[in-house]
């Protein structure tokens, strides 16, 4: 796996709707900008070997870093694959939609649910939203949230950005009735 740079974003919300959020709501994102393992090879039918070589390694790189950046137990989480313009979205999906990738984060966060994801192709500096849901029960409505990210200068056409996001809480000022009240 060839990594060009690793980016950490930490967002803290201290007031929302004009009211204090205490403690501040924290969301952390860590992204690795890596070379697309299938760049320049034309249409590759079998993505298996590239997945084998890269998916676990990038998961292992990102999971401890996003937990360290959050500096708190994760309650919600999500993931992203942003493919540079010369690649297929399938290449990004290949690296993040495998247990080899996600289990590193699940283990680090004591999580059990599927990781919500964004997969997208675009130029360097593209804005993308990472969806997050609760780490053990994806129906917990208070924790449905999204964080917006833009990385300067990535992904280049032959690169893929792989990112993990973790939130220490649900939405700031969350106050919707739980799903069970409507069932």
């Amino acid at each position: 796996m060839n990594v060009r740079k690793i980016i950490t974003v930490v967002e803290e919300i201290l007031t929302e709707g004009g009211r204090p959020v205490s403690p501040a709501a924290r969301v952390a994102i860590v992204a690795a900008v890596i070379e697309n393992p299938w760049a320049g090879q034309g249409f590759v039918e079998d993505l298996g070997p590239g997945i084998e070589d890269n998916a676990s390694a990038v998961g292992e790189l990102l999971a401890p870093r996003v937990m360290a950046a959050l500096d708190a137990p994760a309650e919600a989480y999500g993931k992203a694959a942003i493919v540079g313009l010369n690649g297929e979205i399938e290449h990004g999906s290949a690296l993040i939609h495998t247990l080899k990738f996600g289990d590193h984060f699940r283990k680090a966060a004591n999580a059990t649910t599927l990781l919500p994801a964004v997969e997208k192709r675009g130029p360097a500096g593209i804005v993308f939203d990472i969806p997050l849901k609760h780490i053990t029960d994806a129906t917990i409505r208070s924790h449905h949230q999204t964080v917006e990210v833009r990385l300067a200068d990535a992904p280049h056409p032959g690169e893929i950005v792989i990112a993990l996001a973790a939130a220490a809480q649900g939405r700031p000022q969350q106050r919707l009735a739980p799903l069970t009240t409507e069932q």
Partner: protein
Amino acid sequence: MQEVSRFGADITIRKLSLYREETVTEAGQAPARPACRASVAAVVTNPWAGTPATTDLSAAVSELAPPLARLLTDRLIDALGGVDRIEAFGKAAIVGTAGEIEHGGALIHTPYFGNLVREFLQGESIICFADSRADAGETLVVPMWHKEHAATRSHYQTVSARVPDAPRADEIVVIAAASTGPRPHPRIGDRTTDPAITAQILEAVRS
């Protein structure tokens, strides 16, 4: 907000955003001295939004700027692994559309911010800067140079800062930035190695 009250007045911050990047490889090669660059942005209400151009800015500056300097530099030092690791610095402001650029300048260009950022980051140089007036979510590229020797060419570099939903029209995003080293592969010389160049010398070479 608790962190802010440790120094100066209590001020209300809506949001804080840290952006840190470490270069693992550049042009396919690991840097001899890998550097981490970071920006920290705080979203505050513009205390002067909607006021006339004759408004005296000084009172609010001495209230607001010192705690911002403290908070932003604390976060930078924490994000970059200690003040001793920081070699370059910069600062910036993005003013929402109901304010003047002068309002952003008021928060970053006076001793109440600049002197304190320099002191907290243990620098001596003038701090280079960028400013803009923009809608929420616009990226600002923040310039940095060496914190003790501003003319050190290897340390001329930038880092981006962006808060997705700020500044609102009546807000200001105040930013401090720092780097732990030079550009990934600096190789454009320095003042000490430069040949003497003037227009006259270049003309003489061509003729």
